[in-house]
């Protein structure tokens, strides 16, 4: 083994560059659309070591800068190359408390892998950093029971309340517990995970993975209270003034679904993506023999939107049994915001993408159930404020399509419950909480916020990064009492 390791380490850059990227093995697409099991199967040990060899350990590791939580990517990859998989996982955990999740849901192509030196070379593709992260985390879960996870300790008496058990809250809780604080998480739903439990489907992030990460937090001594709606059951002010918490972190997420505001949207069969996904994910409506929440199925499903949520919804529809599940998007392929892998997987599964199409009205039958949607075709005009070319309707291009269900996946507005029930905390013009970008400090003393409730809908890793940064700032605040 030792000789072999030595041999690997002296591999020169030229040889490393010759190795082709190892794609993530996946369930066969024809088979996987009939189940809700995870699509990506994960690397075998050999795949992982070979892929790790592709990292040339360059002098300026841009990948670290590309990572929202600054994981020492070359270091963990070298540990995988050496066969020290538990060491690799530990290295990742120095910066990220949820590696098995991030390895699965991060948009790596826009972050670490986007700036990877190898990937920027002609005719070459970046190191599969996300796949390697997932490999290390899964290996740890299987083989390294409690692998060096530094267990929480009570160094301080001060208690911190975390509002929302989604990515930012879980990350903040883990960090603060490791620092030695007492931490309580308050979650409105009956299960923990936020968007990771109600939004991201089983086939992309198995619930067992989430539960594993949550169990680690519980083992560390983080208290979790489900079924508590902060702002209703208890307010943020009460947490600070009556319940003995010295600081509060608000990570309540993106909030409330946007609708198109077109005629017929109130018809049965028109869903928000959140409702469609919540029924299937949180409430397990895909298994109606076992679970009580109902779900309809028909032949044609159209999802409006082209982000990750739209991909999740359309692929969920396919698995529920819709024989024709498709995307209608008002812009073109280039403007799609979903992760590349999700788009590829959707295409492999037979999802049809129709671009430059905008819905105008929904049409119902005599029972007010959706039966058709009228759309218009679009063309791209001048760039809008997002820098993307604005879609403009083409006159006379209207057409009607038969549909059994429509899912609207065009984003979210702020959820009013926490902002409107908290005193002295400033909000921006859209109602999101104003918080310092680096520290998460709000305008209310002792209250920090991060994730989608501050930025509007973004990604899991950005929310986690915000939770982590806020944890550092909370520690600073509790030690100095300086606001």
């Amino acid at each position, binding site marked *: 083994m030792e000789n072999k390791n030595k041999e690997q380490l002296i591999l020169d850059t030229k040889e490393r560059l010759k190795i082709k990227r190892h794609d993530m093995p996946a369930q066969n697409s024809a088979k996987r659309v009939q189940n809700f099991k995870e699509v990506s199967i994960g690397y075998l040990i050999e795949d992982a070591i070979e892929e790790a060899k592709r990292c040339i350990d360059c002098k300026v590791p841009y990948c670290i800068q590309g990572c929202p939580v600054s994981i020492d990517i070359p270091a963990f990859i070298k540990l995988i190359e050496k066969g020290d998989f538990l060491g690799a996982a530990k290295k990742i955990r120095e910066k990220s408390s949820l590696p098995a999740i991030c390895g699965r849901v991060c948009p790596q192509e826009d972050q670490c892998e986007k700036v990877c030196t190898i990937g920027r070379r002609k005719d070459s593709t970046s190191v599969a950093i996300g796949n390697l992260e997932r490999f290390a985390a899964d290996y740890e879960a299987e083989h390294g029971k409690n692998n060096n996870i530094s267990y929480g300790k009570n160094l301080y008496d001060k208690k911190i309340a975390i509002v929302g058990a989604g990515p930012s809250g879980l990350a903040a809780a883990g960090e603060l517990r490791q620092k030695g604080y007492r931490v309580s998480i308050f979650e409105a739903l009956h299960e923990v995970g936020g968007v990771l439990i109600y939004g991201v489907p089983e086939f992309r992030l198995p619930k067992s993975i989430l539960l594993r990460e949550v169990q680690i937090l519980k083992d560390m001594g983080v208290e979790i209270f489900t*079924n508590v709606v902060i702002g209703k059951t208890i307010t943020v002010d009460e947490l600070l003034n009556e319940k003995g918490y010295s600081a509060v972190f608000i990570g309540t997420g993106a909030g409330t679904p946007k609708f198109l505001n077109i005629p017929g949207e109130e018809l049965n069969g028109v869903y928000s993506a959140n409702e469609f996904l919540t029924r299937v994910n*949180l*409430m397990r409506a895909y298994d109606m023999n076992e679970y009580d929440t109902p779900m309809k199925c028909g032949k044609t499903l159209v999802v409006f939107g082209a982000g990750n949520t739209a991909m999740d919804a359309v692929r969920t529809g396919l698995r529920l049994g819709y024989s024709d599940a498709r995307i209608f998007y008002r812009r073109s392929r280039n403007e799609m915001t979903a992760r590349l892998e999700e788009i590829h997987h959707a295409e492999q599964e037979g999802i049809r993408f129709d671009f430059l199409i905008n819905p105008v009205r929904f049409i119902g039958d005599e029972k007010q159930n959706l039966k058709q949607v009228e759309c218009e075709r679009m063309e791209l005009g001048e760039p809008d404020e997002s820098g993307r070319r604005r879609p403009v309707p083409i006159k006379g291009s209207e057409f009607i399509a038969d549909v059994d269900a429509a899912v609207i996946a065009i984003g979210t507005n702020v959820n009013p419950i926490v902002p409107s029930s908290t005193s002295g905390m400033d909000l921006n013009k859209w109602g999101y909480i104003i918080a310092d970008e680096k520290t998460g400090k709000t305008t209310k003393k002792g209250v920090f916020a991060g994730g989608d409730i501050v930025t509007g809908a973004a990604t899991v890793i950005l929310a986690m990064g915000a939770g982590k940064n806020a944890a550092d700032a909370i520690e600073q605040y509790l030690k100095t009492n300086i606001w």
Partner: protein
Amino acid sequence: MYEIIENKSIGEGVNVYKINAPDIAVKALPGQFIILRVHKKGERIPITIADIDKNAGCITILVQTLGKTTHLLSELKAGDELADLVGPLGIPSEIENFGTVVCIGGGFGIAAVHPIAKALKNAGNDVISIIGARRKDLLLMENEMRSASSGLLIATDDGSYGTKGFVTDILKRLIVDDKKNIIRVIAIGPVPMMKAVSDFTKKYNIKTIVSLNPIMIDGTGMCGACRVLIGGQTKFACVDGPDFDAHQVDFENLVNRQKFYEDEEKSSYECHRKEHHNF
């Protein structure tokens, strides 16, 4: 954690549940609701709070057994626990001293209108309550409503108790014959009743509030299943309501949306009865 303190059948498939929920009781205000799950694979169902006992730390709800979930709930005994209970949800009813107000409860709606009538009376209003049911034996909470009101009027469809006819008949008498200076009407009950009340008060330009109960999942504004049309605008009953200005409500849409899963609900109940009761 969410212990049933009392489960009492009051006939015709209706049960009164007292639930130990100190955190909810201390916060709950009239017009708010809770969401519960009976078991770990169960659905989330929203139920309006019928009474609040802040000292004892418990809430009362009335539930009619209509399907699998409510049937499972009806089988729970004192000492049993719910899988989940969350609340209080929704915006509380507007309670002020308006003057003379009429609180109307139809069938099940009586349970929901009760805490509102009580609070309005405490706020100094002259509360005239009208409660109605199909028959005398289906009339709920008569005594509670009597003590929550300055005056109580009763209607039954078949005339077996009180006035024969509908709650709207009595309302009409109050407005047209007695020429009461009614400032506000609160009407909670089956959608056709709320619509009938709304249509009537609109003619007389009397502000009318109804409490809407569409299908709901999370109850915190996240999913949008409970959207209702208010003055042509999409609103969420869970965070913008459940109380709305009756004259702005699209009742037809509400009824259609409530019925969407009727078939699934029926077949789920039938399966459940076959499996567990060999009907």
